[in-house]
């Protein structure tokens, strides 16, 4: 039992950190917030060459063949550097959705492009309700000849404007449960698709996608008609662990920034880091992030080993989001006014933490899942 990265993973981590420190300083992060595309194609090409975009994709489909623990350690570094890219949207969520739901032909058609980074595939699951429960899918798919017509509003769709393919979740049978949810491969430029950027706290290129009677053929159904929810659930669990790992990286960096600043900033003739009020904040920050990191690793490891992780995943996401909130909020407080201005790095983490907190399920929702499972598993006392 080592509860941490292997030597090979430590190398992935170190290389990623070195590369990102050069290629993705915070000036770049700020620049991309204002950028129309939201990421730099040159950096994207480079990280795809490293194999990051194909990390989770099996080698037979042109990927790197890595597992959940590999992507978790990489995600920590991406979270630390705040790398703006469609990596999570396409190479994690998009790739996993195709891998979990698609037929072999569909995998052959889609995965190599995702792995090489030439094609960006993003999942359009959420709707204005913002829930990750099956009832949230209310977009309608109505039969139309041999195909379907899609109508509804998708929200929080990452990098929809850069995507070659949208994977749209819609209902082929009315209802609120998991049955009747179907995934469709939709061309974002098809007639009836309107894409509008969302103003989000982190300016991270999420979109509203309005589908107004969009026509799709039968062969654009990803997997089985009406049976997509179990695959979506698998994707959400894996993606939640990746966001959790990214959150750990961001939380660690927030802590470092606060610690460094508090050693330098002098008030009342002393570095502010010598005041216990601030010391105790920072001691709590390191405690929360250290604990949450172990839980994220455990969840990633269980998913990799094919063990039941239904309780570890929501625990990990809840703990990691909690640690990221604590570290980024308290970290920003430690900077005082100097943390609030755009030039400050800590405010980038503060805003990113909010985005990561609600992405793939907020902590309250995950805690609800934990307790539901504990209640199900609880047995009456034996004596």
């Amino acid at each position, binding site marked *: *039992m*080592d*509860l*941490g*990265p*292997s030597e090979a*993973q430590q190398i992935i981590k170190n290389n990623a950190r070195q590369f990102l420190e050069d290629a993705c300083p915070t000036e770049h992060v700020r620049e991309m917030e204002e950028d129309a595309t939201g990421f730099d194609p040159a950096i994207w090409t480079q990280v795809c060459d490293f194999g990051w975009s194909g990390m989770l994709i099996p080698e037979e489909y042109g990927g790197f063949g890595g597992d959940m*623990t590999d992507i978790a350690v990489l995600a920590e570094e991406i979270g630390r550097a705040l790398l703006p890219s469609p990596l999570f949207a396409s190479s994690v969520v998009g790739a996993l959705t195709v891998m979990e739901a698609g037929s072999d032909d569909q995998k052959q058609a889609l995965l190599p492009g995702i792995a090489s980074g030439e094609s960006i595939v993003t999942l359009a699951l959420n709707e204005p309700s913002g829930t990750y429960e099956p009832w949230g899918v209310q977009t309608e798919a109505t039969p139309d000849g041999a195909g379907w017509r899609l109508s509804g509003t998708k929200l929080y769709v990452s990098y929809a404007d850069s995507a070659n393919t949208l994977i749209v979740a819609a209902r082929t049978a009315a209802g609120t449960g998991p049955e009747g949810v179907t995934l469709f491969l939709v061309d974002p430029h098809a007639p009836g698709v309107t894409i509008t950027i969302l103003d989000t706290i982190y300016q991270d290129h999420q979109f509203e996608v309005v589908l107004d009677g969009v026509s799709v053929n039968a062969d654009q159904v990803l997997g089985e008609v009406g049976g997509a929810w179990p695959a979506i659930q698998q994707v959400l669990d894996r993606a939640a662990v990746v966001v959790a790992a990214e959150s750990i990286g961001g939380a660690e960096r927030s802590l470092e920034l606060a*610690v460094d600043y*508090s*050693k330098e900033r002098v008030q009342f003739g*002393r*570095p502010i*880091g*010598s005041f*216990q009020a601030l*010391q*105790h904040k*920072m*001691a*709590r920050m*390191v*405690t929360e992030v*250290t*604990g*949450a990191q*172990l*839980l994220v*690793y*455990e969840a*990633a*490891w*269980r998913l*990799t080993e094919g063990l039941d992780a239904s*309780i*570890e995943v*929501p*625990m990990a996401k*809840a*703990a990691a989001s909690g640690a990221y909130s604590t570290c980024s909020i308290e970290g920003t407080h430690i900077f005082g006014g100097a943390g609030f201005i755009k030039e400050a790095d800590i405010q980038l983490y503060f805003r990113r933490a909010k985005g990561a907190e609600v992405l793939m399920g907020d902590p*309250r929702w*995950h*805690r*609800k899942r*934990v*307790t*539901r499972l*504990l*209640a199900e598993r*609880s*047995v*009456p*006392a034996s004596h």
Partner: protein
Amino acid sequence: MDFTFPAEVEEFRKEVRAFMEQELTPEIRDEYEHCTDYPHGFNKAITRKLGQRGWLTLTWPKEVGGKEASVWERVVFDEEMAAHHCPIAAHQVSANFAGPAVVHFATDEQKQKLLPPITRGESTWGIGLTEPNAGTDLASVELRAVRDGDDWVLNGSKMYTEHVQDSDHYFLITRTDPEAPKHRGVSIIVVDPRTPGITMVPLWTMDGYRVNQVFFEDVRVPGDALIGEENRGFYHLAMTLNTMRSSGLGGWTEAQGDLDDLVRYAKETTDNGQPLIEDSWVADGIADFAIYVRISRLLSYRVASMLESGGPAPDRETAVRGVWGKVYGQKHVKFANDVMGMAGQVGKYSPEHAPMLARWQRRYMGAIAGAHNGGTPENILNTVALRVLGLPR
């Protein structure tokens, strides 16, 4: 990345579990839950049986009676003890605190005399650190030890000592050089608590346990009562406390048992027909508690894995684990007691109205003692700030 125990350790777990299931009769478990003199149960017969198997000192070197077993075996032993509510008060101090100090700092003669009875589970120890004027600021101890010929003569007093009324040895830190800077004038001295001149006055804690104020009046002990180097006692102690912080790595299993019982209670108890667990604040708090217990486990394993790979007790993980328990633990205990509502106040002498035999009422009080035993929450936060984060003084 790996989160599994080595196979042979799981075999050892079966052996320990079989022992616990056979030896810990309902009476002994009841004693653990309800005993008045000691938290965590005091049972010399069980301690002796554990000692006979060599389990109390699993990781000690063979030449002093240990088994040189892996840290994982010690973890598993701790886990099974805590999960089965095994009484530990008769060996906790000897095996996990005083013993390691003797192993590290005593002379061969002292080791030969003091260690074998500890490994066999035949000697019980008390610790005397705190004094009326020295709590968190431990280097300010005033219990005076003066050389007189070959002997030491002690005068002063110690506070809040558990177990000492039934102990064979009493581990003390004393002032041996009042002129030196305070950290450099402290020495470790071990005495027999039945020595003439020692008086114990019981103090009863709010949750019903006995601790003692112990007075020393011209207490004369032989020269070899000194353990380690004279006037280096504070530094010896700092290292010993660090070792102690990396013990009890299986203690989380007791919290896991508490959590399981709380979930069962919240599922089976209804509020106007609705199970408590469906109330959103209860559901949220239970999940938070469950995450707390899981992270406690993982932090324990992380410390164990670093100890097993041969390093000293790792600063970051050890200290963070201390914060985790001391700073965050209490809120979950309060939450669990809150779930009991009115019944949360009811104690063990009204068992028919006390959910879970009043365990959460006891935990509610015990959490305060737990947070301060071996250092305050603020103290461990300071340790993390200064030693782990390198913040300035």
